[in-house]
């Protein structure tokens, strides 16, 4: 980027609220149902149908607003945003306009991206639209099909101030926001299914210029990496246009991930006049102090605070704490394991290692891991007691995962306990020495690095159960080195 320009970035994030039913009717919000399986007179906009607000959606929106430090408004007003599109069944979207649910708030960004506090402008509630299916049908060259399953799915739109100065910062802001929303149980964070979407407003200006440059909006960027790339591209494009004496046109653009470029969708001249006005079918939304305080009191400890506490309370390294606070479930799992076994670092190693690896490989959430924290603590304890080696422990973990049995039970039933008596190990050591006279000769000639080979052979004979320390001692003694 040319040093003579400064980038100015603001984000608008649409997050689906994790309710069982839609915002204005009783239809399910479950993803993946056959088209129009979740549709009723209200969410397909039949004549005479009326919206009734889902209280749970309000609670979740208020939860998000409070966690982000916003001021929740006692009275907010739904408004109609009028435009025609086939996926919009009523010809208007019920949203909030002049009087949104929450104002202010923000997120502290780390020093690595400038250490700014990125302010939020507002958070408002709205309904999602349906989906136009342009492909995949025999007559798709002539027809568009419509799926209203998403129509009426509850959303919050979170709007930031234009406080960010780099693509990296914007991507990290989005990532941090996602982590918090998922942490709160407000959103599932699933960008592929469209439950979290991001639009970026980008402009550039000369550093020190108090005026904002003309902005462009890049719509619907649905991964952190693409968001960073799209903004990076837009910044470069703006600078290039201005460097060549051109003028930025205010417009809406889309990001082509394959080409790594943005392209124009519509210009300001084609922009809609949405003719917003207060939704007469819904009374103003009142959130009184009691309800607000109740939700505030129920807020969980947020990721950043949790991270700091884990370091202080369990004495684990920062690196561990950051990894263990990726999700609330993992942090809970770690804490329960650490408390049960009394060895926080061992608990941390197991969770960061085997637990997260299995979750990733099997593509499951922590809640679906069949080994309970208490069971994992049991495994850690028998390793500490020397009943099994850490090598065997990994095998035991795998068997626990597959069978749901306790560690001690598996060790006993499958005969996996560590062999730590000299009388059992001595004959094996002798056998291995006898079988490898050449190696023995090499070691005696000073090539000590071959020593581990012989230890490994003993471990192999014991199928990993030999106490490695004892094996080493016996081997040293036998070789007289």
């Amino acid at each position, binding site marked *: 980027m040319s040093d003579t320009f400064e980038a100015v970035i603001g984000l608008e994030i649409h997050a689906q609220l994790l309710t069982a039913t839609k915002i204005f009717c009783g239809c399910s919000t479950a993803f993946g149902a056959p088209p129009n399986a979740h549709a009723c007179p209200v969410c397909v906009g039949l004549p*005479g149908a009326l919206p009734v607000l889902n209280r749970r959606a309000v609670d979740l929106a208020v939860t998000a607003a409070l966690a982000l430090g916003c001021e929740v408004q006692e009275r907010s007003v739904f408004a109609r945003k009028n435009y025609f599109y086939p996926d919009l*069944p009523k010809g*208007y979207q019920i949203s909030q306009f002049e009087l949104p649910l929450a104002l202010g708030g923000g997120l502290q960004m780390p020093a690595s991206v400038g250490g700014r506090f990125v302010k939020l402008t507002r958070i408002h509630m709205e309904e999602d639209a349906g989906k136009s299916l342009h492909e995949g049908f025999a007559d798709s060259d002539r027809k568009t099909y419509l799926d209203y399953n998403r129509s009426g799915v509850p959303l919050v739109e979170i709007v930031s101030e234009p406080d960010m100065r780099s693509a990296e910062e914007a991507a990290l802001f989005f990532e941090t926001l996602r982590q918090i929303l998922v942490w709160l149980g407000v959103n599932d964070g699933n960008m592929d299914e469209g439950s979290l979407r991001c639009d970026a407003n980008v402009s550039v200006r000369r550093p020190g210029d108090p005026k904002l440059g003309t902005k462009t909006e890049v719509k619907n960027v649905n991964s952190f990496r693409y968001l960073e790339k799209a903004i990076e591209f837009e910044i470069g494009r703006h600078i290039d246009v201005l460097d060549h004496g051109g003028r930025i046109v205010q417009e809406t653009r889309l990001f082509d991930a394959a080409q790594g470029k943005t392209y124009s969708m519509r210009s300001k001249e084609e922009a809609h006049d949405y003719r917003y*006005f207060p939704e007469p079918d819904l009374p103003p939304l009142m959130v009184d102090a009691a309800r607000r305080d109740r939700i505030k009191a129920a807020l969980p400890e947020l990721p950043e605070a949790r991270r700091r506490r884990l370091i202080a309370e369990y004495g684990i390294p920062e690196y561990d704490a950051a990894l263990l606070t990726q999700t609330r479930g993992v942090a809970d799992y770690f804490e329960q394991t650490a408390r049960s076994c009394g060895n926080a670092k061992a608990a941390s190693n197991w969770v960061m290692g085997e637990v997260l690896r299995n979750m990733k490989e099997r593509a499951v959430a922590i809640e679906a891991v069949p080994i309970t924290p208490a069971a994992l603590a049991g495994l850690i304890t028998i390793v500490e007691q020397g009943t099994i080696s850490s090598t065997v422990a990994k095998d035991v973990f795998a068997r626990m995962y597959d069978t749901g049995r306790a560690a001690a039970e598996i060790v006993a039933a499958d005969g996996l306990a560590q062999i730590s008596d000299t009388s059992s190990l001595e004959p094996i050591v002798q056998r291995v020495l006898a079988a490898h006279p050449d190696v023995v000769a090499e070691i005696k000639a000073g090539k000590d690095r071959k020593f581990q080979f012989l230890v490994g052979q003993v471990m192999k004979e014991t199928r990993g159960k030999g106490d490695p320390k004892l094996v080493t001692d016996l081997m040293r003694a036998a070789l007289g080195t």
Partner: protein
Amino acid sequence: MTARQLTQQIRRGDTSAVAVCEAHLDRIKTLEPAVSAFNTVTAERALARARSLDALQQAGAPLGPLHGVPVALKDNMCTAGVPTTASSKILRGFVPPYNATVATRLEAAGAVIVGKTNLDEFAMGSSTENSALGPTRNPWDLDRTPGGSSGGSAAAVAAGMVPLALGSDTGGSIRQPAALCGIVGLKPTYGRVSRYGLMAFASSLDQIGPLTHTVEDAALMLAAIGGHDGHDATSSSEQLPDLLAALTGEVTGLRIGVPRAFLGDGVDPAILAAFNAALATLAARGATLVDIELPHAGYGIPVYYLIATAEASSNLARYDGVRYGHRTAIEKDDTLRTMYERSRDEGFGAEVKRRIMLGTYVLSAGYYDAYYLKAQQVRTLLRQDFERVFATVDVVATPTTPTPAFKLGEKTSDPIQMYLNDIFTVSANLTGLPAISVPCGFSAGRLPIGLQFTGRSFDEVTLLRVADAYQRDTAFHTESPTAAEALMNRPASQP
């Protein structure tokens, strides 16, 4: 015969639900060709339902307060499995998959729905002439309109085709046709009756209510349809009082406010004479007449036409040819925009288009503050006028309309003249207050005249008590409509 009397006779076994249903269907058959009150008559369905009600009674099951009473619904209220068109070409053939709450509640009360009645397209009009299915005629004079937009329901009740019907009232659409047809029309307090399943015209003004011969029947019907509904967020959780018990005939000491200054220009002398006579009748019964002022009532019409059209422009956006209703024939190179434009152009009538355009303009960037917002501010002032007045009076009385029924085609070329017909009725919609029209006389040409009372918010009790007391002293509501009677008395041999 009133609905109350009919259901009592059926309960006593003097007649049956089927016999009553058949008698009304016969009358519909005779009168409908001349009156055109109905868009759909559901004869088979109604008879089947009447048979099941008779069976219930035979079995000794508990019976509803409207047991066996035939009713008609304005054709902008959804009825599952029965076409509901709002008298618009854009909804020709539309069959809702669900029932409006009022339809469900009427049936739960034992009523038998015999059909859907004509209206001005999407309830936009004051004469029922803006119907894609043709106009309804006034049973008192077939060359005149029954008023509107609930003209079909009013004509059906006036002509005795049904004892009860439902209308919807956005700016007077129940009360004005009731007045012009010589029957009772009640617009309840906004939020008293669920709007779920009512095809919206202007959501903040629309309210469903009864059209009947007597105030007692109106009370009976409101009791059946009123009360909170979880499907309508604007429906009130205010408890519905015992409306029938409120009809005591007692008006002694009751204060009736009369906004004399508001009754000036443009009111037909016959209307004023009937109105004054009605006030004298009530005074004789013990009520006190109080002069009041409603300084902002004169702005009612412009305020109404700004707010109603703004909301309508948005409410009618869903009729886009995409999911249901009329879609234009698609040609090879048509764009989505062309599909929208032609479907709506072909589907909507002139008055509906006029209001959509007006409302779109009112909400447009740069005009919103000057029109929509200003109108909402005046609406608040009007509400305050009434609040002030209700500190000293119990009800407000005015004529319902400035003139009796006008001729078909008389006002169709001049929308402003047509709009002015709502001068006395729009205030109740803008303020949300309950209002009722009762017959109070006839013009020289024997056309009915209506008297309107407006009450306090959710105080239908006082409103109905006054109106009922007035009916105890008068017989205008018992008169039969001239033209309809002539048709009924015609020898059977005539075509």
